[in-house]
């Protein structure tokens, strides 16, 4: 991934929209938290814009994978499936722990607001990205 073939240009081509989506998600989260009288349409637009950029990321990532050779494409699909599946697990576990009251108990000890992070689009997007980078070398080991 970050070896001698690493290209910042290719990375931006494949993942540029993900960074935009995460930034817009943080901004949107802050805007929706403000005590202002937004109309429903404005609130829906603020909420959905990061998700639309997330879809653009999926599109550019799919194009990037389609431009690979057969073996790298296979590895990328496997790493991508690993990343999305594990993200679903993490997001579900996060929600379950929140529901059971584990974060409330943890907050009393650590003063960390762990319950508030999965409500934004940036959380699953960054998690998918991080797990892809974790999964790729794992699947790549089979071919070395």
């Amino acid at each position, binding site marked *: 991934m970050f070896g001698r073939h690493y290209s910042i240009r290719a990375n931006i081509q494949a993942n540029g929209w993900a960074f935009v989506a995460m930034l817009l998600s943080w901004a949107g989260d802050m805007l929706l938290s403000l005590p202002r009288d937004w109309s429903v349409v404005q609130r829906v637009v*603020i909420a959905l814009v990061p998700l639309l950029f*997330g879809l653009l990321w999926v599109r550019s990532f799919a194009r990037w994978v389609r431009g690979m050779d057969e073996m790298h494409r296979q590895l990328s699909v496997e790493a991508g499936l690993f990343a999305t599946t594990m993200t679903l697990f993490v997001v579900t576990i996060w929600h379950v722990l929140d529901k*059971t*009251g584990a974060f409330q108990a943890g907050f009393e000890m650590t003063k960390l607001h762990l319950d508030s992070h999965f*409500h934004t689009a940036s959380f699953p997007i960054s998690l998918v990205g991080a797990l892809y980078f974790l999964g790729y070398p794992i699947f790549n080991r089979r071919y070395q």
Partner: protein
Amino acid sequence: MKDMNNRPNLPEEIGFGKLTLWSSWRGSMKAGAAWMFVVYLSDIPGAWLLDHHQDWPLILRILIALVPLAASLLYVRGIAQWIRGMDELHRRVTLAAFLFGTTLYLVFNTGWPLLVRAGLFTALNLTRWHLDQMPFFNCTFTICLTYIFSGLGYSLINRRYQ
């Protein structure tokens, strides 16, 4: 006879694509269906217990909540082993179909709570059908919808090869 026993797994065994003679309980069981039923049987009763016994100790509540998740992991392991038993072409199409399914589910999983937060369902009076309470973080719902999306993805991707 030996060749018949060692034949590669087929996506149709779990109902992807056309439902054919290959669709079978045996094939589904190979693909982790037993763990899927464990998820179904532990998830909804577990959620009921958590809702109705909020005074139970935290450790017990966490254990009850994690049982369906552990079974889901075993279900995913079963699916992965089943896919590994396919021939090259079916494996490629099925992996792409599951990637399509999980990605689409993640889009819904992320977007729906944002729409609830934006107040769309309240404004359109869709809360009477409880659309604001879609259980996107429920294991049963996740498995069912991911399966439907993956089946849809399989049909779309498979068309390229026909």
